[in-house]
């Protein structure tokens, strides 16, 4: 038996609330399958199981209280020979509580700062139907999270039984008063609290160093214009896709920047999962991962990026996307900022920043010409690397962007 725990979906997460079960007892679970939706201080997240098996017992019903990270939510009967996959990096971090699934055993002593983890089902505000996942519009899912409505208890009136915004709001009005709604202002404050905790920890624990370089983007943009002119709109590329790919590929050359600071030492990651800093309308940000960003074609990377941004803003991210980033890439260029020196998201080792692509005087063979340029920056953890390695990294990013056809 394996406990399915309240996951830690980032360095800034200490608690979560179960929104919805997507499986019911007796149903089979594939490894990596989304089985629950959990509300964090930042977003509603689709939580995947890291073990294959059968959902044995649900311990916590949707719509209840906020629970500490590591609280058992359900029991999974693991398949014979099935082992839990690599736990999220945050699970191994000093400040983390536990991986998403663990062999069933007494709760770790450092999991719950408050009440002990429950061993029996908690009372639910609304009956949990469980069963097949019904289609839900993004705005309805987001509103359900805000109102604490268990989607399993909502009858969808849209096409094909789709749950609409009106269905969620009606369910909120009709339910017992036991599960109070979370005002939007409260959600915004929780988001700020979560960001404050992570950034304060970063500045408290990580000795940052900062580097910046200006990169000629004329070749990259010319190549992009030519490529986009031949592509249908559905396959068109953004300049940001080239920047993300170059940033990811450069991590292969300086792998010390890709990974985590865990147990007092740097642990490089074999995979490059680019965390993309995404601002949320209404305030706050998240930085979910594009997995294996260095291996994706530009077309695939573009598709993943546009999908990730849309889902992040619709409140539909997966737990692995929240836990897996091995570094973060941010850009504030869209709002005119020319350089961003970011704060590393612990326990990661580095953060890469890109500013606005602007036209500037540029010396070429003794002649001043006008070129589009971008300022790339690196915030590095000085415990793990020195400025020299960081400089090599930015040099690699600049070099890669001079050969966009090879990205």
């Amino acid at each position, binding site marked *: 038996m394996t406990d399915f725990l309240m996951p830690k979906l980032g360095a800034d997460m200490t608690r979560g609330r179960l929104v919805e079960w997507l499986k019911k007892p007796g149903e089979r679970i594939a490894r990596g399958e989304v089985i629950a939706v959990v509300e964090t201080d930042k977003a509603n997240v689709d939580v995947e199981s890291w073990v294959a098996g059968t959902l044995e017992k649900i311990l916590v019903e949707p719509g209840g209280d906020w629970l500490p990270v590591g609280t058992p939510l359900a029991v999974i009967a693991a398949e014979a020979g099935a082992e839990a996959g690599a736990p999220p990096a945050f699970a191994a971090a000093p400040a983390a509580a536990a991986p998403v699934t663990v062999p069933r055993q007494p709760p770790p002593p450092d999991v719950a700062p408050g009440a002990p983890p429950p061993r029996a089902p908690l009372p639910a505000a609304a009956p949990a139907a469980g069963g097949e996942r019904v289609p839900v*519009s993004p705005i309805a899912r987001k509103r359900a999270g805000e109102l604490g409505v268990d989607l399993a208890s909502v009858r969808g009136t849209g096409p094909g039984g789709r749950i609409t915004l009106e269905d969620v709001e009606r369910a909120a009005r009709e339910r017992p008063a036991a599960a109070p709604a979370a005002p939007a202002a409260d959600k915004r404050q929780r988001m700020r609290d979560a960001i404050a905790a992570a950034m304060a920890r970063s500045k408290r624990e990580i000795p940052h160093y900062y580097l910046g370089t200006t990169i000629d983007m004329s070749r990259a943009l010319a190549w992009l214009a030519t490529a986009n*002119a031949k592509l249908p*709109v*559905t396959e068109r590329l953004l300049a940001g896709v080239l920047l993300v790919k170059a940033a990811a590929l450069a991590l292969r050359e300086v792998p010390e920047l890709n990974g985590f600071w865990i147990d007092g030492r740097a642990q490089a990651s074999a995979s490059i999962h680019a965390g993309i800093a995404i601002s949320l*309308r209404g305030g706050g940000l998240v930085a979910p991962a594009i997995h294996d960003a260095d291996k994706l074609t530009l077309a695939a990377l573009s598709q993943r990026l546009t999908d990730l*941004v849309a889902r992040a803003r619709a409140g539909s991210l997966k737990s692995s996307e929240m836990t897996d980033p091995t570094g973060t890439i941010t850009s504030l260029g*869209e709002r005119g900022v020319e350089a961003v020196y970011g704060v590393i998201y612990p326990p990661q080792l580095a953060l890469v920043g890109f500013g606005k692509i602007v036209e500037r005087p540029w010396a070429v063979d003794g002649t001043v010409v006008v070129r589009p340029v971008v300022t790339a920056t690196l915030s590095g953890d000085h415990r793990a690397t020195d400025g020299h390695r960081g400089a090599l990294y930015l040099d690699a990013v600049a070099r890669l962007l001079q050969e966009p056809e090879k990205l």
Partner: protein
Amino acid sequence: MNKEEIRTKALGVLAAVVPELEPAELAPDKSLRDQLDIDSVDFLNIVVGLAKTFGVDIPETDYRHLYTLDSLVAYLAGRAKG
């Protein structure tokens, strides 16, 4: 398809990308980007949505016509099939 039908369908595309959109509060002659707080990724998703909904290709050189709701509707009225 008349302009009102185009406007209604276009608002549906915008709402799919920006669920927080309140159509009644959208000034038709002001920047969509500023009013909706959208970035280049959102904008690309909107362009893709418009292209699929109206069955038109929208080259990058025409993006300037999508600056406001009014200009967007006028542009699509000149290109939409049916």
